[in-house]
């Protein structure tokens, strides 16, 4: 009798839908995050294709200047705020409670609230297209551009943009509080801080960054909103305001946000590389301190986005920016020596992790160029910067996300993804990515500015732009094998079993997918690899 009372009979489709809409289970919320993020990834990708189609040839063929401004503004906004940041939070949601042996997040209902703010924010953001013009002042929305009603957007788009970003930011802040309380208060017995999986460490540092940085952009956006709508004068020099102030407050968030967008992806590949190299992570503690170091240094480099304003102290911000390369370099050694003399199995998660490693390395090197003030003066606001940021955020974070998807999909669904389709996906995406973004180095060096819809056919930029556009379509095509793979695997994929990869961490100690309460019993936790210890006993050490 008690069991019938506890399990409301799931009457087909409607009961299932109601369950997903009202769930407070961290695993279901995690999957909702992933699905929602992928929807906005594809929308943002379509906008990017719009940009590439217009730039394929000199001249204005398809869109007006104003529409073009809307395209790149909304592309960047969707990718940053509705794809990368939330999808990493989604993986964190699913994986972190499992990896620390907890039954759920600390505040399950706040967790659901955090998620549902995202589709709401996304809808508000894209409503701009239906209300006379989306936001068009760039994802940075610098003042006075974003304040000028004629330039920023022809309709309500810019104000909707502000409201949406504040909403999404609030979702991030609540999520960060939830992660930190969960990690600090709900770890299983025996899981000391230095036995936490690296993924959990990176989510911890990311959550601190979100907690300290995101409210600052909220304040900047509220001031911008007051300026635009209530006659305020924060950022308008004509009435005693200061437009550089906006840039300072904006980048005080938006530079740490770069680490918010990459640290959890670093955590994901740090879970994958040891498993597929059959070795423990090389230099666990060094990796942890490097992660904390990146987080701390991340708050002292924001003005390297503002070198050319002439309003910031160049030597300090240049030095601090170069310093960031040190902990990042430590991590490169961690990853490379983890694989060194390991038994590498080149399955799809490892391929994407290697993609992360190599592409993020390029993004780190071309970033270090721009940290040098004289070089930055030459390259500022050129396609070099576009190339750099995509090597870090696409070559880094997106490859990491794909690695994590192929790695944890079996845990989430109980089905393996197809390896052959996975490899096709990887190859298409890898070549497409480099064909799109490598030529942008040369375009930047040749002086092509970002955020222009049109260029002279005599500038010598024609072939490289055409190559980038072809690459963009290759990236889009690489999503087809992924979608087909997910569709086929959900219907008839090979059953995964509890631990298909012979993993190290606690999520592999429960069923695939895990029950609502996660664990019947936990293995003893004596290292950061409890499942490895359980499988091999003391021989493994």
């Amino acid at each position: 009798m008690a069991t019938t009372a506890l399990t409301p009979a799931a009457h087909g489709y409607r009961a299932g839908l109601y369950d997903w809409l009202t769930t407070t289970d961290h695993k279901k919320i995690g999957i909702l995050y992933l699905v929602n993020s992928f929807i906005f990834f594809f929308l943002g990708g379509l906008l990017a294709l719009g940009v590439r189609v217009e730039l394929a040839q000199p001249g204005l063929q398809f869109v007006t200047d104003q529409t073009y401004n809307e395209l790149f503004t909304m592309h960047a906004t969707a990718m940053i705020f509705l794809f990368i940041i939330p999808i990493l939070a989604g993986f964190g949601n699913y994986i972190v409670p499992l990896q620390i042996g907890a039954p759920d997040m600390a505040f399950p209902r706040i967790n659901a609230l955090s998620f549902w703010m995202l589709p709401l924010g996304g809808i508000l953001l894209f409503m701009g297209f239906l209300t006379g013009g989306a936001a068009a002042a760039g994802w940075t929305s610098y003042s006075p551009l974003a304040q000028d009603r004629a330039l920023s957007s022809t309709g309500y788009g810019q104000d909707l943009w502000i409201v949406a970003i504040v909403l999404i930011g609030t979702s991030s802040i609540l999520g960060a509080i939830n992660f930190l309380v969960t990690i600090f208060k709900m770890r299983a017995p025996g899981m000391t801080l230095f036995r936490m999986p690296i993924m959990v460490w990176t989510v911890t540092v990311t959550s601190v960054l979100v907690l300290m940085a995101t409210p600052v952009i909220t304040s900047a956006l509220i001031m911008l909103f007051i300026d635009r709508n209530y006659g305020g004068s924060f950022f308008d020099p004509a009435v005693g305001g200061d437009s550089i102030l906006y840039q300072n407050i904006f980048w005080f968030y938006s530079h740490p946000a770069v680490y918010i967008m990459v640290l959890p992806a670093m955590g994901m590949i740090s879970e994958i590389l040891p498993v597929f190299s059959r070795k423990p992570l090389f230099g666990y503690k060094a990796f942890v301190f490097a992660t904390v170091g990146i987080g701390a240094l991340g708050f002292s480099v924001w003005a390297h986005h503002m070198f050319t304003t002439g309003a910031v102290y160049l030597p300090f911000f240049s030095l601090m920016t170069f310093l960031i390369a040190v902990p990042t370099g430590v991590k490169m050694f961690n990853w490379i020596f983890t694989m060194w003399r390991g038994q590498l199995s080149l399955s799809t998660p490892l391929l994407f992790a290697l993609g992360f490693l190599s592409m993020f390395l390029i993004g780190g090197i071309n970033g270090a160029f721009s940290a040098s003030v004289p070089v930055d003066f030459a390259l500022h606001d050129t396609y070099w910067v576009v190339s750099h940021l995509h090597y870090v955020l696409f070559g880094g974070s997106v490859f990491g996300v794909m690695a994590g998807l192929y790695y944890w999909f079996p845990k989430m669904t109980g089905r393996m993804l197809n390896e052959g389709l996975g490899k096709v996906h990887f190859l298409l995406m890898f070549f497409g990515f480099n064909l799109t973004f490598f030529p942008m180095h040369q375009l930047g060096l040749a002086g092509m500015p970002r955020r222009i819809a049109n260029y002279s056919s005599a500038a010598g930029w024609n072939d490289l732009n055409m190559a980038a556009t072809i690459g963009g379509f290759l990236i889009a095509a690489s999503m087809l094998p992924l979608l087909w793979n997910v569709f086929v695997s959900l219907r008839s994929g090979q059953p995964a079993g509890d631990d298909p990869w012979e993993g190290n961490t606690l999520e592999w100690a429960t069923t695939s997918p895990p029950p609502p309460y996660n664990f019947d019993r936990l293995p003893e936790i004596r290292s950061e690899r409890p499942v490895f210890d359980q499988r091999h006993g003391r021989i493994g050490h």
Partner: protein
Amino acid sequence: MTADPHAIATTEHSPVASLPHDARGGIGNPVLGMLLFITSEVMFFSGLFAAYFNARANFIDTDGVMRWPPQQFSHTLEILPLVGPATLILIVSSFTAQFAVWAIRRGDHTAFIRNMAVTVTLGIVFLVMQAIDYIELGHNGLTLTSGVFGTTYYTLTGFHGAHVFGGVIMLGVVLYRGMAGQFSAKHHDAVEAASLYWHFVDVVWILLFSLLYLVPGSGPA
């Protein structure tokens, strides 16, 4: 509500057991969550304060002289009759909030509810006084649109007021739940969390009041 909360309170009436903690020691999840939320709020106000400092340090008045406050508003912001007493009221309410916390830690429901009711009332009085002050200032020509002085003044005090409003609602819920008998010496994380938030709101106001009303202006009169 089957168990009598008063019975729980009396059986666990010891100073150690009555501190807020979870099964493994340390502070409870809601209290830690509130401390982290307050951290994010500190950063939010930091952004607004940064804008204020920036405006104050760089303001050039209509006669081309660097001055703060602007000549036009040199005598607009006055401590008496409203703002000084309102400040005292908010400080006193922080004390009564803490008395309420200490009372529920002892399991003294009567003192808890009495102090919490006084706190909520003082919070509402502060908001009413702020509203009256806004109307007065508006009559004296200070509005959101009167340059960066007006914009920063109303944005900072306005967002503080919004936080007082949020705090009053939070404390109101705590008071309601307290009258429904939901708190005991052992179980009162919500009381601890709400009072921490209230202290934070109080501290922000003390900083704001000092900056806006006490720290002397600069530049030729």
